[in-house]
Every structure is written in C-alpha cells, then in structure tokens.
C-alpha cells in the first residue's frame, strides 16, 4: 500500500500519561546497604552546664533535662535548665563584655575572632555534623553538605564586614545596640546560631543565645569553639532551657535587641513581652510558601525542586514549599513523576549516608504532623504516601502528598512543618499568583517556568521575602532571608542582615 506522510501537527506536549502504564518499579533487587557515618571520634559529654562568661557553669536550680536522639529515643546528654537567676548572670556577663571589651575593640580585631571561629568550625565540621544529626534527626548527608558548611560560611562572611561597616550604610555611621538576646529553633540548630551570632558580633554587639530544648548540643559545641578561639568571656553566652527560659531572656531589662526564629505564634508573644521597651526586634517566623509550576517549566527539574522544597530536612523548614500549585495542563504528569520520585526517597536512620529523610525532631512534632494528615483526609484530600517502612523506635513520618485540596482546608492554610505537601491546580498566571498570595504568611515562594519574562512578572507579584525561580531551598550567607507579612520582620544574611544590629 502507498502510505502518505501525514503533515499534521500532532499537537501538545510529549509529556502525557497513558492511563494503563504501570508505575515504575523501584524494587528490591538492588538495595543500598547501610553506610553509617562513623561517630567514634565524636565526644558528647554526659552533662552540659550553661555557658556564661566564657565558662560552663552549673545552673542555679541544679536542674537538668535530657536531650535525646529522635531516631532511637536514646538519651545523648543531660542539659542544664536556666532560670531567671542564670538569665540574669548571662545578660550581665554580656553587658560587662560589651562595655569593657567588645564595643571598644576595633572592627578589624573583632573580624579576626570571627574568622578564627569560622576556621575552627570547618576543622571540626565532621564532628559538628555528626552531633547535629544525632541530636536533631536530620540526615547526615544534609548536616555535612548544608548545615555545617553554611554555618561556617556565615561566620566567614560576617567576619569580613566587621571592619567595613561604614561602607554598608551610605551617609551613616553605624553603632552597635548592646546586648542581643537570641532565641533559635530546632530545625537548623547550628546554622541558626550562626545566622544570629555572626552578624551580632560583627557589628559589635554581645550575645545571649538560647538554643531549642530538643537540639542544644551543637550550640554547646559552638561554645567550646568560642573557648578554643579565645573569644573574650561574655561576648557570647549560651543558656539552655525551655520556653520559660527564652521568655525570661527576651524580657530581661538589660537586653537591647531581641532576635527570634520560630513560630509566628511565639513571635507574637515575644513582641508582646517587649511592649513599651526600646528593644529592637527581628523575627523570622512561619510560612506556607507556594510553589508554582507552569506548563512550560523544565518539568523533571521542577519535580526535583518540589522534592527539595518539601522533603528537605523532613519538611522542618520555615520556607518549605508546602503548597504546590500546578498548572492544570501538566498536573497529571507532574504528580505521576512526583509520586515515582518519592518512591526513591530513603527514609530511615539519619546517620546512614544514603538516608534522604531522617527522623522527625520530636514526639510532639510527629503527633502534630499526624494530626494534620488526619485532618486533611477528613476534609476530603486524596492521600499519597510512599511505601517505605518506618523504624519501630524513634519519631518518623512518611513523605506525604495531599492532593485535591481546596484553599479553605486547614492543611492548606496552616504551617505543618513536616514532610507533607498539598497540591492545588491553577489555570492562568493570575489565578496562580492569587492563590499563592492568599495567606497571612509571606516568607518564600517558588516559580518554575522557562519563560524569562514570566519569571520576573510572577516573582515580583509574589508577596514573599525570598523567591526561588527554577530552583528551591537555596541558602547563602550573602543572600538576605526573611519574610513579608506574618512571616516576620527584618532580614538575616547579606548586607541587609547587618541593619537589625546597628543604630545610627
């Protein structure tokens, strides 16, 4: 027979899903055996005091609490609980060192201390990574490749600013504020300590830092590093404890500056606690960031971006891309690819170098995540979870997608802070932007499209402090980070990160 070549356009994208095609088989033929990071070289003391005025001291109350490994619930160490008396000692130590030493020191010398700290952190990077993973449950791969190097880089970056501050504020002469009270969360313990301490010290302030009660160890290791670096006593004081300790600290009258990273709820409480004072405040709070995938995106990279956006650090990320908004024309293929991709995520022992998703940070957080998943199901969401097996001990959550959700669902509106993604579709650019901005939060957003002009348009319409275009969850010490609206005020990182710690 004579077959004519048809000149018809076949139309549409090659990205189509035939309904009858079986999912990919990520079977068990070849499994990666456990590749545990060695921890023999790491020493965790059985007990840690409070780091005040350059020394580890017993808490006034003599009370200690356990810090556990969330992957197996074993106690790692006993941690001092600071009360009002200890807070006072720490603030006084910070004040003395501010008045007598740190505010008088030249920027050049201050900078050299920070450089020295950065260097020691790099030398002890592996130890810090192991401790971070043991204490917090995050995969060792992430501690090693993200948390610790970035924390050191932060000190390195702000070290360089210490003697160049006049160039950061044209027409102004910056002066330090005094004593900074800093309260940090458990999701990136050492990195958040670095975000807080490095700019404060570079600008000539002294610090009292309170790490989260579930993840105090790397901050205490950092205290050891300060000792090793001969940082003058009292320049940084690290006090451990629960919310009550943090409340004492931020409301102490000797404090000039409060910096907090954590939930919006607590951020508002802190704001209330300092009402009527002259304390300056920066807040880095919650988020419910939208991740927009347009039909002209590089779809496979976008899927990877979605995975980075929500499953990085078990979703314990304030800027997690937790609301996926997909243009309807590619929704099917994106979900198909996402589900297949999720099957390859290794959930398990955080110390295994092959683990992609580690332990949930605490029992409390695990319960909260489970509650949200249940709520999503009740409200009518379609649930997808990977077929991974979870360990029996410790706190875990399966990578989860809730699709077919509506804007009104609790899981769409509230921050879950876990590996749970909601999926909504949109049809036009305007609808996508409207849905993305339909939240009291404004921390971050993601946009995937191959069209340059669309990127600029969409990213400028997103009411959020960080926009990742064709990428997600990237961090750098030179890059300012912080939220619009109820996601916080002030920026951390970059030249903008100096402003919260100076006056003119």
């Amino acid at each position, binding site marked *: 027979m004579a077959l004519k070549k048809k000149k018809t356009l076949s139309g549409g994208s090659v990205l189509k899903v035939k309904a009858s095609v079986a999912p990919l088989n990520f079977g068990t033929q070849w499994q990666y055996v456990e590749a545990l990071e060695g921890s023999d070289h790491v020493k965790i003391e059985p007990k840690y005091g409070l780091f005040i005025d350059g020394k580890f001291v017993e808490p006034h109350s003599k009370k200690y609490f356990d810090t556990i490994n969330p992957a197996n619930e074993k106690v790692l160490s006993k941690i001092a609980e600071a009360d009002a008396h200890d807070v006072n000692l720490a603030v006084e130590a910070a004040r003395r060192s501010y008045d007598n030493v740190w505010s008088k020191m030249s920027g050049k010398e201050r900078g050299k201390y920070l450089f020295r700290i950065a260097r020691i952190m790099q030398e002890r990077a592996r130890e810090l990574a192991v401790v971070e993973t043991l204490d917090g449950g995050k995969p060792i791969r992430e501690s090693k490749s993200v948390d610790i190097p970035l924390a050191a*880089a932060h000190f390195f970056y702000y070290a360089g600013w210490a003697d160049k501050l006049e160039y950061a504020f*044209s*027409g*102004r002469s910056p002066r330090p504020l005094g004593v900074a009270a800093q309260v940090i969360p458990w999701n990136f313990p050492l990195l958040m300590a670095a975000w807080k301490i490095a700019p404060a010290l570079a600008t000539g302030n002294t610090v009292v830092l309170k790490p989260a009660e579930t993840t105090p160890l790397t901050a205490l290791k950092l205290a050891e590093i300060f000792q090793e670096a001969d940082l003058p006593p009292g320049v940084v004081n690290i006090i451990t404890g629960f919310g009550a300790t943090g409340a004492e600290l931020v409301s102490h009258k000797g404090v000039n500056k409060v910096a907090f990273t954590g939930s*919006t709820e607590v*951020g*508002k409480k802190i*704001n*209330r606690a300092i*009402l*009527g004072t002259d304390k300056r405040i920066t*807040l880095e*709070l919650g988020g419910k960031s939208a991740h927009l995938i347009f039909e002209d995106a590089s779809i496979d990279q976008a899927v990877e971006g979605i995975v980075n956006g929500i499953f990085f650090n078990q979703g314990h990320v304030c800027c997690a891309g937790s609301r996926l908004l997909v243009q309807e024309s590619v929704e099917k293929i994106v979900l198909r690819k996402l589900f297949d991709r999720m099957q390859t995520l290794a959930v398990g022992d955080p110390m295994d170098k092959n683990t992609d998703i580690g332990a949930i940070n605490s029992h409390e957080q695990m319960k909260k995540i489970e509650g949200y998943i249940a709520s999503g199901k009740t409200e009518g969401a379609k649930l997808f979870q990977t077929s991974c097996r979870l360990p029996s001990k410790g706190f875990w959550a399966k990578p989860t997608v809730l699709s077919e959700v509506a804007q009104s669902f609790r899981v769409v509106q509230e921050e879950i802070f876990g590996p749970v993604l909601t999926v909504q579709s949109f049809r036009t650019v305007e609808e996508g932007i409207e849905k993305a901005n339909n939240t*009291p939060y404004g921390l971050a957003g993601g946009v995937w499209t191959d069209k340059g002009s669309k*990127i600029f348009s969409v*990213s*400028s319409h997103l009411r*959020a*402090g*960080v*926009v*990742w*275009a*064709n*990428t997600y969850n*990237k961090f*750098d010490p*030179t*890059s*300012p*980070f*912080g939220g*619009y*609206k*109820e996601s*916080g*005020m002030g*920026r951390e990182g*970059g*030249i*903008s990160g100096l402003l919260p710690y100076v006056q*003119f």
Partner: protein
Amino acid sequence: MSRQENSDRLGVLKTYKLYIDGKFPRTESGRYFKLKAADGKILANVCQGSRKDVRDAVTAARTAFAKWSRQTAYLRGQILYRVAEMLEGRRLQFTEELVEQGVTRDKAIAEVSESIDTLVYYAGWSDKYPQIFSAVNPVASSHFNFSMPEPTGVVCVLAPELPSLLGLVRAIAPVIIGGNTAVVLVSSKQPLSGITFGEVLHTSDLPSGVVNLVSGFRDELIKTMASHMDVNAILLCAEKDRVGDSVVVQEQAIENLKRVSVWKDIEANPYRIMEFQEIKTTWHPVGA
C-alpha cells in the same frame, strides 16, 4: 468667620472635607469640630473622621496599591515632582492658611518652602533608593541572586501635629515614593493645611487612593489604624504629650505583625523610605 477682608463683599467659605479615594467626601459620621483662630474666630467646621472613614480609606488604599506599587520609579518621581509644582503654585494659599491657624508669617513662608523642597527631594529619590539599597549577592553556587526593595503595602500615617504641613509632607513623601499607599490622620491642631494638601494631590496626577487624608482625633482613630488587619505598616509621628501612643500602636500592630515606625523627628533621608520597604531576594540558576 474669616476671610472677609473686603467689607463690600461677602467671602465664599470653604468646606473642609476628607480626601478618600480621589474624592472629597464629608465624614460618613456627619460629625465635625470647630477650628478656631487665636482670636477666637471660627476658622472652619472640620470633619471629625470616624473609624468607618478610616476603613473606607484603607479599602481605597488597598485597591490603589496594586497599580501604584507597580508604576515605574520614573513615573512616581514625576508625579511627586508634580505635587511640588502644584504646591509651589499655591504657596500663598498655604501660607495664609498656616497664618490663620496661628503660625507667624515668616515661619509659614519657610514651612511652605521646605514642604515644596521636601517633595522635590523625595521625587529625586524614586529611582535611586532602589539602587542604593539593592544588591547582587555573590552566592557560592551557580545562581544569579539579587535583593531589592519592594513596597510594604498599605501604610497608616499618624502625621505630626506641628508643623502641620511640613510634618505631613515629610511623613507621606517617603511612604508613597516607595510605592506604598497611605491612610493619613492629619494634624488636629492645624487640620486645614492637611486637608487643603489633598487638593494639591488631587491635581497632581496622583492616582486615586494613593494618599487618603482623614481629619479627626488620634484618641479615637489610633487603635483602628493600628489594628486594621489589611494595613501592613504604621508610621507614628510621636507627640511629646502623648507618650502612650507608641505602646498602643505597637500592641495593636502585633496581631498581623505590622511594621511599626515611631518617629521622634521629621528629618528627611532615604532610610525613611526603607522603613516601608521589604527586601525581596530572588534566585535563579545560571546555565545554558
């Protein structure tokens, strides 16, 4: 009432109204307060703006924000310069009004001049503050990364009592030149300058709703302004005899984490623009 300089002719008195959404409505509440000159003569019946007027003004400001925030810096600069031109053309009227309200002639002349110059000053900043306060951040990965200021949104302004005109201009110019829209409570001691300034704005190509002027009393409106959930920032020009204002504003602002600025002076500088800006950082991969 005043302005009956020529005894042969009965003067035409001006009704001082609010300026909301590019219109000059009376307060919906129908209330007014009498403004008296030093000699006791009644200068005007001034609208006593209500909470509802503030709410309407916020609605207008929110609507106007969508467009105003996306205008080019060049155009915003042009419009603010146009405001200066309009004010220059009416300097006599403003001077007289200040004098009527009790300012000495010399001071009134100086205040109007400084107000005009302030507008010119901030008009010139429109396309420069983003350059001063933006950055290309040299991140350690294959990404192009930049940070730039974007307007915070709707800003409530509690303008200073005195100087009523200069204070007003110093407060709103940095807010609107940065692309925000404003809801302003003008001076209650000298409300006429603020209200008349609305006429200047109205004839200066400034889009409706970008600046909304309400006359009235702080005691009544401060909470409404500070607690409104669709207001993104609040500028409080502090009054020495009203020390409680800043706590009220700060407390009410917490619920939606409004940005709060408390000014103890009315100095003009670009950092005052930045108080109503958010830094947005954008990342994009670099690869072919």
